[in-house]
């Protein structure tokens, strides 16, 4: 777990004020939010990776500031969907062979129809 200052140091492409504003806007939600006045928020590896992602979006991909929430929202939906799909596919893998094959055939047929 890292403090806000440590994240700034490690990532190198965001300053304290900017990162603070990202947290305030909910772009980054520290694993341990600094709710008590004295407590500093603590960022996990996941949070740091997200900070890097936002830096990439802003600096490398030239995403406008007001577009960042939109992109994060779409990405969060994408990852949530992937997580659901992973759960679904691991559930499918526990099904008997003939069930899995039947499902795969239906999925492929449906994709051939374009639906």
């Amino acid at each position: 777990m890292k403090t806000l200052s440590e994240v700034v140091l490690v990532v190198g492409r965001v300053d304290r004020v900017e990162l603070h504003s990202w947290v305030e806007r909910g772009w980054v939600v520290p694993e341990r939010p600094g709710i008590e006045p004295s407590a500093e928020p603590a960022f996990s590896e996941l949070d740091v990776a997200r900070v890097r992602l936002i830096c990439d979006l802003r600096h490398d991909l030239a995403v406008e500031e007001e577009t960042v929430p939109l992109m994060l929202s779409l990405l969060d939906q994408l990852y949530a969907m992937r997580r659901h799909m992973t759960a679904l596919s691991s559930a499918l893998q526990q099904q008997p062979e003939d069930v899995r094959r039947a499902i795969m055939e239906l999925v492929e047929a449906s994709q051939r129809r374009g639906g």
Partner: protein
Amino acid sequence: MSDDPYTLLGVARTASQDEIKKAYRKLAKELHPDLNPGKADIEERFKGITAAYDLLSDPERRGRFDRGEIDASGQERPQQHYYRDFAQDPSAGRYYAQEGFGDEESLHSFFSDLFGGRGPGPRPRARGADVAYTLPVDFLDAAKGAKKRVTIADNHTIDLTIPAGVRDRQTLRLKGQGLAGFEGGPAGDAYVEVHIQPHAYFERKDNDVQLELPVSLAEAVLGGRIQVPTIDGPVSMNVPKGSNTGATLRLRGKGILDPRSGKRGDQYVRLRVVLPKAPDAELEALVEQWAKDHAYNPRAEMGS
């Protein structure tokens, strides 16, 4: 794959810094691993173009590379963990939650959608529907309050407490008395609109009760104590001597409870003098005698 940074970025060796930046951005938008979570090889490609851009975006290092002083290798950034490496961890749920994806329920609804709204497991918990009824209520039950067991549609019985002083057309909300919920979800609510039925002789005006009370000629002329019906049952009331039709007497605190103030209104008793039902010779003689010396004109104000 070529290691040459110019080839990786797809620019000429003579490209300006601005062209290099534009080329990198264009590629980064396509190849950023976090925007392509499902593609395994994309991270390597992205690292390649990022390393190439790192090298070429710095004019000094670009110059050294062009002069052959350094090669394209060794410029890679240290191992970086991308967001996508974590994004499917359970702890990432706090980000999905913002998108309404986080909790069990939406996972469930996701799978329910997949299975045509009828998931493999139980149906989602859902609150039962609200129902609305109108209920005729006795004047006295509304005035004094009552407990009722009412059977409504579908043989559904509800126990209903009618609060004292309920108003006509008032709606009572009965929490949890609507239709049953699904799969342990809470029942809906019942909304009962009260329709107060008229009473044979009581009338209600706000929190007061009005009553027209017939009195005999003797009671009107001579006065005395008489029995008056109230919503609580008969009470004794004093009629003053010479009380005419239209005289209104007040029984304080015999009206209807005002639920807000907790006080009861009053009952107003309007007297109506009633002659005996059949003509009576004795009364005729008496009044004839009396009228000789006591002529009066009750229509004087009408000018007739």
